[in-house]
């Protein structure tokens, strides 16, 4: 298993043969999903998976670096709108949608780095970072919501105010088939899955690398980390930018998935969701965050049949209970309970 050693380390749970074989089984099962379940469910799975990037980014920022960011949706929305504006202007010929994809991510990363520069190099206290990030996303929502008039257009892309932008072209792989392979349906699902698996593995390497260990050192004690010679601000800026860019990946994928993006994706309720997923999963580990995000999205969607409010009230209750009773998150709580029951059963048998 030595070739896996880079993916294991002190900052991630799960390292044994059992963990990695279940991981492989899960990936194979997910990849085979289009042959196993109906296309409606595949579309849903793509939807659940596309949000995990934002949650994983928050896990790095909040769980590993200890930075309280309440405004990940600002980067989500910026990336979604940027993709819309660029792709509507450029069109979808010759893989130009990938220019929109990377342009949106670049813009988002730059914006995140700029915000991070002002916050961390300005010496903003950690509690204030939460307020500033939340204010940014709320102001962006207000801003986009009032862009209804025809004067609010960038090139040929109308911003459309409260109703949001729609009809942007989907991502298209040039050259594979005649006119390019359009990423929708199963193709989009496989793309999102492949990206999610790569980002998950990449983050496992990153958080267990020297960089990741320094982030945790800063979380545990910023002053000590600084005394040891690390430039705390630079590490915080890097972590924040990475987290912002990952929220941007979710934003672009969301926009291509449904071919729309609205200002409310940056609102107060939307901003609470990544916090809920990450906290419920146990923010200090990316695997638990990933699992909890997909599970809670599935749960929300199942409950939303009765009305989105009911699902959101439940999400709020889950967050409250997790904070009060299970600060390590639900996934760890559940797996510990399972382990205890298994041990109990074994004991009884003997």
């Amino acid at each position: 298993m030595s070739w896996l050693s880079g993916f294991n380390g002190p900052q991630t749970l799960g390292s044994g043969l059992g963990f990695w074989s279940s991981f492989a089984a899960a990936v194979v099962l997910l990849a085979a999903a289009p042959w196993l379940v109906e296309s409606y469910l595949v579309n849903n799975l793509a939807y659940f998976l596309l949000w995990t990037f934002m949650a994983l980014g928050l896990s790095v920022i909040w769980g590993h670096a200890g930075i309280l960011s309440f405004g990940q949706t600002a980067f989500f929305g910026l990336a979604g709108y940027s993709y819309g504006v660029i792709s509507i202007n450029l069109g979808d010929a010759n893989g130009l949608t990938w220019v929109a994809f990377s342009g949106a991510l670049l813009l988002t990363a730059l914006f995140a780095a700029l915000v991070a520069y002002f916050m961390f190099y300005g010496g903003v206290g950690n509690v204030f970072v939460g307020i500033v990030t939340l204010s940014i996303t709320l102001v962006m929502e207000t801003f986009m919501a009032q862009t209804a008039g025809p004067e609010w257009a960038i090139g040929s892309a109308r911003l459309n105010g409260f109703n949001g932008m729609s009809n942007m072209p989907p991502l298209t792989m040039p050259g594979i088939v005649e006119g390019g392979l359009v990423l929708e349906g199963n193709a989009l699902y496989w793309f999102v899955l492949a990206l999610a698996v790569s980002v998950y593995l990449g983050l496992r390497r990153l958080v267990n690398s020297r960089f990741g260990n320094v982030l945790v050192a800063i979380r545990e004690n910023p002053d000590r980390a600084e005394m040891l010679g690390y430039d705390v601000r630079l590490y915080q800026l890097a972590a924040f930018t990475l987290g912002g860019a990952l929220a941007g990946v979710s934003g672009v994928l969301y926009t291509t998935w449904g071919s729309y993006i609205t200002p409310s994706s940056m609102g107060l309720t939307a901003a609470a969701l990544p916090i809920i997923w990450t906290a419920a999963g146990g923010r200090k580990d990316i695997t638990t965050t990933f699992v909890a995000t997909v599970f809670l999205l599935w749960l929300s969607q199942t409950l939303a049949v009765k009305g989105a409010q009911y699902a959101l009230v439940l999400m709020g209750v889950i967050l409250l209970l997790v904070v009060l009773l299970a600060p390590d998150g639900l996934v760890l709580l559940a797996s510990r309970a399972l382990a205890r029951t298994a041990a109990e059963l074994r004991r009884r048998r003997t």
Partner: protein
Amino acid sequence: MLATGIGFAYQFADSFAFLILSSIGLAVIFGMMGVINLAHGEFIMCGAYVTVLSARAGLPLPLAMVLGAAVAGAIGILIEFLVIRRLYSRLFDSIVATWAISVIATQGMLIVVGPSLEGLKTPFGSFELAGLTFSWYRILLPVVALAILASLYLLFVKTPFGVRARATIQKPEMARALGVNTDRVYSLTFGLGAALAGLTGALYAPTMTTVPTMGSAFIVQAFVTVVVGGTDVLLGAAPAATVLAFIQSLLTASNGQLIGQVGLLLTVIVVVRLMPKGISGWMLKGSE
């Protein structure tokens, strides 16, 4: 020229009142306890709903407003007892918990009372000056805001409760050793902050539509004022609101509402870069 000047003064007073009133409950809780209450907007919403519902049931408006503040305060004390108290040693978790409460309150209200409520008429009517129309009620709000600031100052400086509260912020262990019941101080402070938020909702209830999500209309201004006000929140609130209201009304007058809002946010980012401890931190540094 005269009309522009009067119009600007009116706009300034209006922004000032909104900034002070929307931030004051948040400022008391943050300044005294270090807890950022993300359910602040929902206490405002609660005050507004109680006011509108009881005024429509026949209660005189001033009494309905007092009731709105009282109900919000009572709920605040209850939440402090059930949730916040358990999280004093985990500051970040207490912030996240108040966000959970915010989501539950907003969405719960949507389920219970539906998306909107028939509002109240703005009282006192309006008058004309130099060709512009002004609302008496909007002129009253800045006066109320200043009165609240003055009473808070008296409360925290001149009363035994204020002395105990300030002792509790400065050195909780020492205050406890000297016989101050710090738990009760925290509980009352949180209740006071919630009641002030409720009062804000009550005061603005006649001027806006009462919807479950109305809290978010206040929350950016509240945050912005608290951040610019800085470490000593009660000292910083008035100068922060003055500076911000000036910038906002200047930009709103020349470029419209939205640019005013964006200007607020940019001011915050610049202030935070130059004075990380806000206006009050800067003022206190001068005095040391």
